[in-house]
């Protein structure tokens, strides 16, 4: 087991955002995390990445508990979060953004050349500033930047939100390639259909609790709807 989160609680002040979330990810597996707005998906990814400030529970990664470690240490261990809203650095060029991802100096398949092979368009735009790119192209930069760290676990937070269908297709196509190189993926996604067709397993969150989990292909649509909306 690559990642095992057990009974994770998270708080924003007095508000409890996660209630005992338990989830695991195997090596090179892809897992979808679906749920309505405010279900706690982003909060959960922030807990794993070390950005959540108030949390409890245990998070095992490669066999050791990382729950108390700061985000920068977790990143160096090989968990990389591609955050919601892409969060590229606006004063850095496309290539400089990618190079930021490579700072942890983890060895592996991915480097600047390989990212440009995966997304040839970025090579053409390497000296441009991110805000001159379309949303879909920015999404590619965000994924490329995350890959530069050669993560063993890639967390993607609504990477396709607000993008054109063509751009989303390109991003999902790249996920297969990424997993072939040994990176496990956790996808936070609002589009349940897309999420279940692109992943091995699926977890559904509702109001900070896991309401359903199972193999993506076998999941019952009616059950999933109930788990999603809580009806």
């Amino acid at each position, binding site marked *: 087991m690559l990642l095992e989160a057990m009974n994770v609680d998270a708080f924003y002040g007095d508000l409890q955002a996660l209630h005992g979330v338990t989830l695991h990810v195997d090596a090179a597996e892809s897992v979808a995390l679906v749920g309505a707005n405010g279900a706690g998906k982003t909060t959960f990814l922030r807990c794993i990445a070390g950005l959540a400030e108030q949390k409890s529970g245990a998070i095992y990664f490669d066999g050791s508990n990382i729950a108390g470690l*700061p*985000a920068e240490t977790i*990143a160096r261990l090989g968990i990389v979060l591609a955050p919601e809203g892409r969060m590229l650095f606006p*004063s*850095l060029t496309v290539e400089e953004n990618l190079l*930021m991802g490579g*700072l942890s100096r983890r060895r592996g398949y991915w480097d600047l050349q390989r990212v440009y092979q995966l997304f040839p368009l970025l090579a053409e735009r390497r000296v441009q500033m991110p805000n001159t790119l379309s949303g879909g192209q920015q999404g590619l930069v965000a994924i490329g930047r995350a890959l530069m760290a050669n993560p063993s676990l890639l967390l993607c937070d609504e990477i396709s939100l607000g993008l054109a269908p063509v751009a989303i297709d390109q991003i999902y196509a790249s996920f297969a390639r990424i997993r072939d190189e040994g990176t496990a993926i956790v996808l936070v996604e609002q589009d349940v259909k897309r999420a279940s067709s692109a992943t091995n397993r699926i977890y559904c969150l509702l109001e900070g609790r896991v309401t359903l989990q199972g193999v993506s292909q076998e999941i019952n649509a009616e059950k999933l709807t109930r788990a999603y909306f809580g009806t």
Partner: protein
Amino acid sequence: MVWVETIINGVLLGGLYGLFGVGLALVFGVTRIVNIMHGEFIALSAFIALGISGLFPDVHPLLLILPVVVVSFALGYALQALLVNRSMRFPDPLAPLLLTFGLSVIVRNLMIEGFGVNPRTIRQGDFGRLSVDVFGIHIGVLPLATLALAIVLFIALQLVLRRTEIGRIVRATADNSEVVRLMGVRPSSVYNIVMGLSFALAGVAGLMLALRTTFTPFSGVERLLISFEVVVMGGLGSFWGAMLGGIALGVAQLIGLRLNSNSGFLYANLVFLAFIMLRPNGLFGART
């Protein structure tokens, strides 16, 4: 001819003012901290330079830059690592401001305690009085060297920020200090380096001030206002803007002094006042 000379001297003085401001602009741009003790540090580096020149009396005054830069960088780095980073953990953004304000009072009074309030000078042979004649205009070599040094340092700073990995990390941290953590960067380590650089620049400014004129423990705080005005005129976070702002203030001050030798910083401050009414975002400031 007198006026041309005044304007040229104002431009040269502006180089010094630009140096005062650029460290402040750097720290604000990256950490969003308004460093009130910047002025004290300019004065302190003048005393550091005095101490070093006392140890090596035969060394050319401009060579003092190297030890002053090293000592200043170390002090700035240590200050950020030991104190300012802690204050930045408070949710209230006023905490670092209050910290630097308190430190400025402490450091100023320690300097008064240690060095007294009598004006000091760095003995430097004839260097401070050298001048060149260009078309009958006297231009001091020291002010000229100050402006040249300021320009060299600005270009160097720009190159470091644009072309090196550490510069890239500094810019990314200024953009988003949370997201850089996802790349394995600890923002507080970046802040240490930035404060060190800021102090190194203030150290050079303090040295050039000390070579130019007499100084006391109050020499820094008297120029803090100028430093802030330079930063605001340039547009917060803009280095070349800070340089141009410094030049505008330097020219205004010297013209003012020629009109009325008792006016001090009055005309420079009036120019600043007019400026913020006309261009509240600064010369290059569009970012908020």
